């Protein structure tokens, strides 16, 4: 009875008693959800264009961040590190397309999925072989102190992160809408046959999407690395983009964003108000359990379409 009340009543009482605190937690959660959204966005881009469920998106975040911080630690200026890291991500996309995707074209999706798990391990191992496994501090000059907005304490860094993420999404939207490459990419997402007839070779498209996903990963890696330090854990945190996708649907960019926000806010609120009675660290699994329950009731996600299979 006591535990029941501790789980079902007291947290709500706590929320009602300190609504300002609740809102701060909520906003903190939403802002960290932006990061999940960023990783999920990379997944969605690749899934839409090539039908590949890219498990390695999280590893790409870590990989990009490792190179970026590595170059900076070598004493290179930020802009040069950035340019060279983008170069690395382009190269990576080309290699993945050539060495993994092309030989596996037309294979079962599950085989491709497992191949991206292989990529994940390769990247994690390779990045750390080159750059070591110590936690590296990354300082890109964004202030990390609290700010008071409308009476609420909000972390300044998180606001920067949200703005940068917004700009990135806007940039991508413009890219898809107004450049020929972007339009070709959208065509592929809609219909592979049609895209072939537009005259864009499929493997070029794939290399481009993987590059774009790599750059999205780089942005996520820089933001996250600046917040938490660049370390192996980033790859694990990035795994939470998977439940985000379940919520948002695998093919929807707005879904990735909304899903990221829901997961981010949900797990923060759950941790702060329910974590203690349940033993703490429920952030570890909250997102996954939420996704699993969601799967039972709306498997196509919030924004996905329900399809009836044909035979």
């Amino acid at each position, binding site marked *: 009875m006591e535990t029941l009340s501790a789980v079902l009543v007291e947290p709500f009482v706590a929320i009602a008693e300190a609504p300002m605190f609740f809102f701060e937690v909520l906003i903190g959660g939403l802002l960290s959800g932006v990061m999940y959204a960023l990783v999920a966005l990379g997944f969605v881009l690749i899934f839409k264009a090539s039908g590949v*469920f890219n*498990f390695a998106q999280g590893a790409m975040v870590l990989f990009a961040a490792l190179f970026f911080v590595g170059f900076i630690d070598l004493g290179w200026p930020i802009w040069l590190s950035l340019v060279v890291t983008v170069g690395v991500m382009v190269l990576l996309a080309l290699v993945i397309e050539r*060495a*993994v995707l092309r*030989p*596996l074209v037309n*294979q*079962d*999706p*599950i*085989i491709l*999925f*497992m*191949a991206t*798990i*292989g*990529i*994940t*391990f*390769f*990247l*994690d*191992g*390779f990045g*750390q*072989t080159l750059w*070591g*496994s110590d936690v590296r501090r990354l300082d890109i000059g964004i202030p990390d102190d609290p700010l008071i907005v409308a009476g609420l304490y909000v972390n300044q860094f998180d606001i920067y992160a949200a703005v940068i993420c917004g700009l990135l999404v806007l940039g991508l939207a413009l890219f898809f809408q107004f450049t020929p490459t972007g339009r070709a990419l959208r065509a592929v997402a809609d219909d592979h046959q049609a895209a072939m007839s537009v005259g864009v070779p499929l493997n070029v498209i794939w290399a481009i999407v993987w590059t774009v996903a790599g750059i999205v990963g780089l942005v996520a890696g820089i933001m996250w690395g600046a917040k938490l330090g660049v370390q192996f854990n980033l790859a*694990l945190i990035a*795994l939470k983009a*998977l*439940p985000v*996708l*379940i919520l948002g649907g*695998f093919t929807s960019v707005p879904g990735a964003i909304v899903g990221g926000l829901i997961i981010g806010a949900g797990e923060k609120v759950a941790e702060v108000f329910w974590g203690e009675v*349940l*033993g*703490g*660290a*429920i952030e*570890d*699994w909250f997102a*996954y*359990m939420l*996704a*699993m329950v969601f*799967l*039972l009731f709306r*498997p196509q996600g919030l924004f996905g379409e329900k399809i009836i*299979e044909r*035979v």
Partner: protein
Amino acid sequence: MIYRETGQFKTSYAADQAIFPIAQDRLGMLVILAVAFVAVPLMASDYWLTTILLPFVIYGLAALGLNILTGYAGQLSLGTGGFMACGAFAAYKLATAFPELHVLVVFALSGLITAAVGMLFGLPSLRIKGFYLAVATLAAQFFLLWLFNKVPWFTNYSSSGVISAPPLAIWGETYVTGFEATPRAKYLFALTVVTLLALAAKNMTRLKIGRAWMAIRDMDIAAEIIGIRPLATKLSAFAVSSFYCGVAGALWAFAYTGAVEALAFDINVSFRILFMIIIGGLGSILGSFLGAGFIVLLPIFLNNALLAMGMAEAVALASHLEFMIMGALIILFLIVEPHGLARLWQILKEKLRKWPFPY
């Protein structure tokens, strides 16, 4: 001429449907069992038994469990570690709460408990396919580990979160678990359990239930139209697979390490076992064990190779290299031979069968 099928006419379907229809396979199996049960315990040192052979057979069992779910039924799982933990902690609770239970009963029950938990996390498989399911199984992985880590009841309120396996005897004073047991006894016990379960898996996968699993894997719609119930079939795969993983987890805690904490079954264990079945061969019993052997030996081999090159301090490097090599091998196998080492072995057998006349 070593390996011939010719001349062995299958006089009846009974012979053809036997578990090992070809005489040389039967013989090979007997030789392997004789080596594993007689020669190894006589010759292997305690060091070999505890650091290589025990983990090998136990990993082999876990890989077999995952292979039933992923290789045969086509449902990808990243929760193997969580299910192993479930088996380990169930066995611990049972053995400490009911000390009079026989060790085999403890293991069977912990397998059944894990099977029930596995079915729970398999429920979303009704609505989603193959790799989406990975997310549900990640939920199992993270939630179960958290549960055993944070809820003190599961560790009998041990302050360190570590459970130590109580000594259990197979008969009389012959202990097979805990610190009292000799490495030889633990090895033979684990080997017996694993062998029996492997034979059972071999039978299941070649009969009705196995065909149902593969039908769901290959073309779920056609399977449904033949009258196979998708949910029941998938759940049965989850149940059997989790049973195997649960028993493997219990063996891990009781016969291999003797004392274990929940974090020993973290997500890396799940990946490691997934890699075993990809490299060993998806949908192959033999492959599960080949893959387990490979992945158990790889780090040992790497460490020795680095040592030989004079890099004694390179523990971290070895583990990063191991990651890289595993990743690359996974991709390589998926591209070149998705049926893994088991298929390579089969090709070799076919070559031998035709030798010395290739046509």
